[in-house]
């Protein structure tokens, strides 16, 4: 999209018709490929359980979406809404706080000279390579020692960590926050913390949005940690809740419909987050790359 737009309006670069159609074709295929499952989900969510098996999976039968949503919200005293709220708390909270922490770390690594800086940075970087999956069990054992498993904090605290965010923040702070500006702020009598919040974060905004989005998605999708940590259904995030319903489909087949509607509703926050923030994200990625 962004590649083609300027060339249409300004005509600076002329590409052959062939390459243009080629690009469009690839994108069209990609779009269909990515959107079909979501379309299927939407269509499936609008059907009653009888129609679900017996009608065309990619086209509507009777439109029961709102009845289905009503059923979902009513099922077991609205436990689904509770899960959604939990997910928003885990994800939103961890992404906000995690972004702040990553930004501070990255900024400190970029702008302050201290002994062991590169070592520290390399240690953080190596954290990027360790998958969250591999950490879930050790974390469980650690939290067991302090008897904090099966609590809100057992999922929230580990979710705050984001080594990739630190990396991104450092790179971006190096590139976009001039030392002279910081000098000027110091001379004007601004403290370090105030400078960070009033000056540096403003300059780092695109990177912060990117970090936030990455972090948001990572925490939202981190399934194994809550699976291992939590045994109280009231603390489940929506992913784990839907999964546990899905494992019971053999026993209670009506859950299949609820899982599908729940899945549709559970992706809406992600879609909204992306639609609102994607512009920042693109800027952020581009800026980092060119410098």
């Amino acid at each position, binding site marked *: 999209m962004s590649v083609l737009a300027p060339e249409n309006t300004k005509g600076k670069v002329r590409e052959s018709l062939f390459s243009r159609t080629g690009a469009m074709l690839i994108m069209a295929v990609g779009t269909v490929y990515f959107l079909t499952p979501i379309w299927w989900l939407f269509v499936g969510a609008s059907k009653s359980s009888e129609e679900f098996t*017996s009608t065309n999976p990619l086209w509507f039968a009777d439109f029961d979406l709102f009845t289905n949503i009503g059923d979902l919200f009513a099922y077991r005293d609205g436990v689904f809404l509770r899960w959604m709220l939990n997910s928003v708390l885990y994800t939103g909270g961890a992404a906000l706080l995690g972004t702040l922490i990553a930004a501070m770390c990255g900024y400190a690594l970029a702008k302050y000279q201290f002994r062991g800086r590169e070592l520290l940075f390399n240690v953080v970087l190596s954290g990027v390579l360790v998958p969250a999956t591999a950490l879930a069990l050790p974390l469980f054992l650690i939290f067991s020692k302090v008897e904090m498993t099966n609590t809100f904090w057992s999922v929230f605290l580990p979710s705050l960590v984001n080594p990739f965010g630190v990396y991104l923040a450092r790179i971006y702070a190096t590139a976009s926050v001039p030392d002279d500006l910081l000098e000027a702020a110091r001379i004007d009598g601004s403290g370090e913390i105030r400078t960070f919040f009033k000056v540096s974060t403003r300059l780092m905004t695109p990177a912060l949005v990117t970090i936030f989005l990455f972090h948001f998605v990572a925490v939202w999708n981190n399934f194994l940690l809550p699976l*291992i940590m939590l045994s109280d*259904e009231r603390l489940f995030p929506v992913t784990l809740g839907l999964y546990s319903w899905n494992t019971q489909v053999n*026993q209670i087949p009506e859950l299949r419909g609820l899982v599908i509607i729940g899945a549709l509703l559970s992706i809406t926050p992600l879609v909204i987050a992306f639609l609102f923030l994607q512009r920042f994200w693109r800027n952020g990625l581009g800026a980092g790359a060119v410098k």
Partner: protein
Amino acid sequence: MRKRLSALLISVLALSACGSGGDDSPEGTAAAASCAPSSGPVTITYTTWIPGIEKVVKLWNDKNPNIQVKVQTGPNGNGGTYQNFFNQLKAGNTPDLGHIEYDALPSFRVQDGLLDVAQCDIVAKAKDQFIPWTWNQVSFGDAKSAWGIPQDSGPMALFYRADLFEKNGIAIPKTWDEYAAAAEKVKAAGGYITNFSQSDINQFAGFTWQAGGRWFANDGQQWTVNLTDDKTKKVAGYWQNLISKKLVSTVPPWTTEWDNAYNSSSAWTWVSAVWGANSIMSGAPKTAGKWRVAPMPQWTAGDDVAGNWGGSATAVFKSSKHPYEAAQFALWLNTSEEALALLNKEAQLYPATTAGTKYSYLANPVEFYGDQKIYEVFADAATQVTPDFTWGPTMTSTYASASDGFKAAVSGQGTLDEALAATQKQTVETLKSQAIPVKE
């Protein structure tokens, strides 16, 4: 999605297996080897995935202010709860009670995670209330032990489409030979006699159980694995024949495709467990009133032998501080009429007690099955299950291996026999890799 997830779980399992090398977790010292009542009020925790369990527990809590049960629910056993139990065993913070299916019980026994509830006098006294084979599933054949209280069972029978059989003049098969013959006629009439479960191996295990195949045995010293005995081979050959002749459909079980095969009258019978009654009801609503239930086809005409598919126990974990109260609750949950009736209503659990199968809530005619009193058939089947089928300690990997082989077999690559031979080899290796003594 599911596949990737199980891969994840397996990798975690592998990790925890690595970690257990230098395991020095302190053993539960005092609590072990005793089952004495606690003094004063206690709270016990219970982890399960039975739908609607909260209502059953509330019934207990209202009546027993001194023994309050806190229930925790989550995904089903293989979906993550078992792995959680193993992690909790390692960390020493298991719940008091856990829901464990019969086929998973040996793996917890091998890890030394369970309390022998036969030590509790109340449990020993209650033993006779249970159908003998269900008790065998928790005692592993040792009369003096019990590694849980049997909760439910899945005696098998033949679900069939009475209308289609009648219309086409096909007799209801009483033996497996007749069943195969009927399969030809059903094919000629444009249907499939059934759908062979290619990925859920438990159905095949139920067939084997009925035929007398015994996959695992434990003599107290070591395990014997025998997935290729004559009886199992007979069952495998039988189904391989139906698959090769394309007389059965092979859509993956528990999918909408599978529901549709029954809903659209493409599959005419299902040899399944008692809880299958509900699966058909909800998966194939268009066929209401047309199904009936008959005893499972027999290998020898005139026999009365049934298989079992499913069933679970309520186990007390070794680290429980209140084993007596935990056992007390588990007994109430699985023997009292009020609890069993509610469990049946909420989750279609079929009891494991002799009296349970005769309770009034199981005596009613079922509308979906043309007002047949179908549970009478299952009550008979429940007493006809042979008692000495034992599960192995590594069923998850055995199932995975067999399921891979079966999937290949139904798509024409290899046979069920070959799949079982490969599973045999793989199971022995898994046992060895976990340092579980096994006879070669």
